[in-house]
């Protein structure tokens, strides 16, 4: 079983705060696990420790149930794809892909065979004699994946490989990545700060902040049942609206807001009086910016409605925000953690 587990893993650089502060999680065999978080949250450090490029200050790392702590990267049977793809500029694509095999001491015929297989799987057989600088961004990603694949590793580690691609290319690159991983079925740990990528790619997502694990779960769980205010606001665009009310924090997603001029009170929904600030027409959706009063004073709220939904209010109107109870989330005011409604 090529599951990857970290136990209470910790990393401190020098005398400062820990970059990774006691994280425990498991990537199941064949799973696509995404490590999601803002810059500096420790996700890349965690990935590098799993790879063996950094030494943990505390805790343990297990691959397939055996501790790999202290083993150099080449002993861990992992493959890694860096953000820059790290293609060897002085080698052709074919040599790039066969490079890991040279370290294993395979014969020339065996290497050639594996290179053919890997490049065939990724559809880059026609690029084998090119040099990296002659390739497009998407082609480079495929070469990096072929090189990673050719070792038949137990785990793939990917460090934000889509960030260097053109925005337009990213969606199709994402599709290719996911399809590739499903075909080969190798456990994959993927680091990103882009929550759209995370939601689209991950079987499960681990949200990290300040070196700690905030929540781990499927994209649906993360999105609909955030464990704390950080997760609630980090995932989802625009972020979840948060208000302080009655000594607690309540949250609801912009797309779960209905707007009426005057709403009758109901049992299954909360109604909040607000003033419309501005309506933005963005093509497929409308964003409506509203101001409401909460325990702290004035707060801004965003509502997101589909364009074909009839709009009953305009700027400077007073309106009622209607949020169904089942869409409401409640968080503790001090810790930000989720509490029962």
């Amino acid at each position, binding site marked *: 079983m090529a599951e990857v587990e970290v136990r209470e893993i910790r990393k401190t650089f*020098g005398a400062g705060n820990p970059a990774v502060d006691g994280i425990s999680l498991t990537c199941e065999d064949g799973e696509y696990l995404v490590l999601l978080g803002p810059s500096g949250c420790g996700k890349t450090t965690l990935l590098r420790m799993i*790879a*063996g*490029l950094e030494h943990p200050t505390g805790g343990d790392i297990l691959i397939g149930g055996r501790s790999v702590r202290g083993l*150099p*990267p*080449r002993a861990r049977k*992992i*493959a*890694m794809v*860096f*953000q*820059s793809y*790290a293609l*060897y*500029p*002085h080698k052709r694509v074919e040599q790039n892909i066969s*490079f*890991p095999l*040279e*370290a*294993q001491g395979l014969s020339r015929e065996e290497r050639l065979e594996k290179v053919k297989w890997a490049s065939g799987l990724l559809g880059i057989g026609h690029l084998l004699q090119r040099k990296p600088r002659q390739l497009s961004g998407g082609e480079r990603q495929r070469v990096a994946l072929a*090189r990673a694949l050719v*070792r038949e590793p137990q785990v793939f580690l990917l460090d934000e490989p889509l960030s260097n691609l053109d925005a337009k290319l990213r969606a199709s690159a994402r599709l290719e990545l996911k399809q590739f991983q499903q075909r080969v079925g190798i456990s994959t740990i993927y680091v990103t700060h882009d929550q759209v990528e995370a939601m689209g790619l991950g079987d499960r997502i681990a949200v990290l902040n300040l070196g700690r694990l905030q929540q781990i779960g499927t994209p649906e769980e993360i999105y609909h049942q955030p464990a704390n205010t950080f997760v609630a606001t980090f995932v989802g665009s625009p972020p979840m609206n948060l208000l302080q009310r009655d000594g607690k924090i309540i949250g609801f997603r912009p797309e779960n807001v209905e707007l009426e001029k005057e709403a009758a009170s109901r049992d299954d929904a909360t109604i909040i009086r607000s003033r419309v600030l501005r309506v933005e027409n963005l093509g497929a959706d409308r964003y409506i910016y509203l101001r409401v009063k909460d325990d702290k004073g004035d707060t801004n709220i965003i509502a997101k409605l589909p364009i074909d939904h009839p709009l009953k209010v305009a700027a400077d109107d007073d309106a009622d925000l209607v949020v169904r109870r089942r869409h409401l989330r409640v968080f503790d005011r001090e810790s930000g953690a989720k509490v029962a409604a």
Partner: protein
Amino acid sequence: MPARAPVVISRWAVLTAFAVLCAFPFGWATFTMFKSDDDLYTVGHVPFLYNSPPTLVHLKVLFTETAFLTFVRNSLEIGVIVVAITLAISVPAAYAIARLTGQWGGRLAMTVFIFYLVPPTLLFLPLSRIVADMGLQDTIWALVVVYPTLTAPFSTWLLVGFFRSIPRDIEEQAMVDGYSRVGALVRTVLPLAVPGLFTVVIFTFAFTMNDFIYAVAFISSSSNMTVSAGVPTELIRGDVFFWQSLMAAAVLVAIPVALAYNFFLDRFVQGLSLGAVKG
């Protein structure tokens, strides 16, 4: 800015003036090395003309009747071995400073650089003692052993800059792909650092050619002398200067060295300012 023309003209004037200033002694040397004796040594003759036809006889004298070629051979031999030693000790050291030392890297690089600032004119006395004690007095091995102290600090400093400019990703990828650090260094970093290595080779060689004080302090026999030591001391017998041959020797050595420097100058300055600015 209005009228550009005066600025352009004066730029050319300034450049020409400097070029003449810098190259004049060599131009003069090149010109006079072909002058026949009667032309050169007759005081009344105009020095800027070939009053008698130019001749190659002094070059012939230089090659066949003096130890010049011996000097050149010695310098080349010493140069090649010193380059090998310098690379052998600087490359690992520079890699270690660039990649393996974290916070200490800057301070280490500075320490190495400080060693470079200790001048040969201070060390030649104790070193001539040490060289004599090692039994290397009056052999080229004395210089082979001592020259790396001149070349290694600078080469290390230069190489640290080059290694730093290679992305860490590439080495880490090689480590994940199955190599140890040293393996990654040899297979990915060194091939990419070849221009830097070339630069080190050229400058190391030029530094060994440039030394004078160690060469005259350690070596007394003509057959073991380098170009820098031998040409000014051996080709001048007493008060009789074979000027044309002397100048030929100077020019024949200066031109190739200058050509080599010019090819690599950009990298040199890059390394110099990288090292100087970033420690």
